[in-house]
């Protein structure tokens, strides 16, 4: 068997284009994925027209002035702004494709915001957003980015209002100074101080004084009002964030998005390399007419299947290990777990090799084998990546069964467990079972191979 393995390696060595494509494919995919994952998403370009006059960018909130334009900075953390001076310019940038969207802040927005905050009525402040619908995915991304940023800005303004309201409540309860427009700084007595004054006045009144009943009522009111207004402060604070989120993982792994994406890239590349090599090299034995010569006593059919699985697994293992090493360095995986990575990769490579040999045995021709490897593997990979909840429960069960019949899903689970922690044994046993099953299919298919 080793001579046949050496022969196959020699043939691969004589096929520099094929080997070059396989190696370059893996390295390029890992580098592109690694750089993309480590650098984060690029910012979409958004035209930004702030039509608010410079002297009107402040909003009076209680006793202080807040610069409304500071909320635009939050947006610029997520998009690359193209600053323009007019609405028309902004729209033109979108139409020309230079910007994916445009955000226009009308001149009256701070006045309307001031009116809303001062409970003065009038229309609510509105900003205008323009999108290009040329690319639905990018449009959705820009829309989501602007919407989420505006939601954050609204929440921040709301929080400012609540903070100011809480200060007023404090002054009403405990007393203090309040800065009012036109009037300036004003001393407020406060409910607690008012009660103290009334209580001291009551103490000096005779027991039968006719004013005592009314003053006692005012004292009780001041006490009750102060206590209840104190309670309303935490209630007001909760309004700014009425619902908090507590995140708990109940199934699956704790893998970060970067780690999972890297694992998927590695398993995908491993699948293509192993399937194409195993299927192609077995079919090549028939195309070169060597199969009949080999199996007449030089090597058993089972030996031939084992040799092809070994060849494909070896190549796929080496390439995927290199890929994972590159990606691990780029996105900062824990290299202390590397021995577990190698175990997962090795079993995955063997399972994919067995599947490839089964494809080669059934199709019997190199071109058909390569085509079948692509046609089968792409939907299998896509199905394995469908998340639960994205489809109906029944359909997801079907998808899970179909995915489980091929090595992609268990290999991804094994690598995920090896990289990020979790149950490794189950997917490894799954891969071993698939190896035996596909090996058996390959062996049976060789009965009609010659």
């Amino acid at each position, binding site marked *: 068997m080793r*001579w046949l393995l050496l*022969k196959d390696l*020699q043939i691969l060595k004589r096929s520099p284009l094929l080997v070059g494509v396989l190696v370059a494919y893996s390295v390029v995919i890992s580098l592109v994925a690694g750089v993309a994952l480590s650098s984060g998403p690029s910012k979409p370009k958004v035209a930004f027209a702030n039509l608010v006059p410079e002297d009107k960018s402040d909003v009076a909130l209680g006793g202080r002035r807040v610069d409304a334009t500071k909320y635009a900075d939050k947006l610029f953390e997520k998009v690359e702004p193209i600053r323009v001076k007019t609405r028309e310019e902004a729209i033109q940038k979108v139409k020309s494709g230079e910007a994916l969207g445009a955000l226009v802040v009308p001149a009256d927005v701070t006045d309307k915001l001031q009116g809303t905050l001062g409970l003065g009525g009038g229309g609510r402040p509105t900003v205008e957003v323009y999108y290009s619908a040329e690319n639905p995915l990018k449009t959705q991304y820009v829309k989501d980015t602007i919407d989420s940023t505006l939601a954050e800005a609204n929440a921040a303004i709301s929080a400012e209002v609540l903070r100011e309201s809480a200060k007023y409540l404090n002054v009403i309860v405990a007393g203090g100074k309040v800065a009012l427009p036109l009037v300036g700084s004003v001393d407020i007595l406060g409910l607690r101080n008012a009660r103290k004054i009334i209580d001291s006045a009551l103490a000096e009144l005779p027991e039968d004084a006719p004013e005592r009943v009314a003053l006692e009522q005012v004292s009780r009111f001041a006490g009750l009002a102060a206590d209840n207004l104190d309670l309303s402060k935490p209630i007001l604070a909760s309004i700014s964030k009425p619902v908090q989120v507590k995140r708990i993982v109940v199934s699956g792994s704790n893998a970060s998005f970067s780690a999972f994406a890297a694992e998927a890239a590695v398993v995908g590349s491993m699948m293509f390399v192993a399937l194409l090599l195993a299927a192609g090299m077995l079919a090549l034995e028939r195309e*070169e*007419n*060597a199969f009949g010569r080999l199996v007449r006593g*030089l090597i058993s059919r089972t030996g031939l299947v084992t040799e092809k699985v070994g060849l494909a697994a070896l190549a796929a293992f080496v390439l995927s290990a290199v890929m994972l090493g590159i990606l691990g360095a780029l996105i900062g995986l824990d290299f202390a777990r590397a021995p577990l990575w190698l175990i997962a990769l090795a079993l995955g490579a063997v399972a994919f090799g067995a599947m490839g040999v089964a494809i080669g045995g059934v199709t019997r021709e190199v071109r058909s084998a390569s085509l079948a490897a692509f046609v089968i593997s792409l939907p299998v990979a896509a199905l394995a990546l469908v998340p639960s909840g994205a489809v109906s429960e029944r359909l997801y069960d079907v998808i899970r069964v179909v995915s489980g019949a091929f090595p992609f899903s268990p290999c991804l689970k094994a690598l995920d467990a090896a990289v990020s922690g979790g149950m490794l044994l189950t997917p490894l046993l799954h891969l071993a079972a698939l190896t035996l099953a596909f090996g058996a299919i390959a062996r049976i298919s060789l009965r009609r191979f010659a």
Partner: protein
Amino acid sequence: MSATPAAAPVALTAEGVTKAYGERRALHGVSFAAHHGERIAIIGPNGAGKTTLLQILAGSLRASGGTVSYDEGTIGWVPQQPALYSKLSVAENLRLFARLEKRPDVPASVERMLDQTNLRDRADDQVGTLSGGNRQRVNIAIGLLAEPSVLLLDEPSSSLDPRQREVLWAFVSGLAEAGTAVVYATHNVAEAERYADRVLVLADGELLFSGSPRELEETVQGAAAAPDFESAFVRFLHERGH
């Protein structure tokens, strides 16, 4: 050679060999024996079962029934299409199969075959770059690597020009003179007449005749004389309903 082929020891025996593909029967109980030094041509129309019989004799195809036995030594198998790795050189192909055949001295076996097939000057050329004739020579060389006592060839001259055919048959005849039993299938009836001690006529998987080319001609001459061996062969098949 000390004895005439028919008197030499038996090298290969086929007893009631049958092969069925589902309902279709490709071979019906074929029996014959090949002696050391004997050259046997299997002839017959297309689909007669010639290749199937040779594949079963070579061990690359399982028979549905019957037995195949050899007295001693190994079997050399030369399939119709060259069974070679086109990305490997002539020497590398020979070396690979010599190793798979577990030859005791691999380099010596390779050298011997390069000399016997006159391919020494092409030893380092990739097989994919060789002409059809040279590829067939390498194909035959691989079949001879194990110094077989029985050599099985399927249409060995089909891709060769007349000059290369002459060389091939001279080479094969030399092997037979050295004691190798040579069994080959051919469509070229003239070659069977010239280079076979015995012909086996197969039609629809049935062995219709086993004897020398002259005996086949005599079989049909009883009715009307045939101008040549090919005509006699065609008439023979016609008389038997094929």
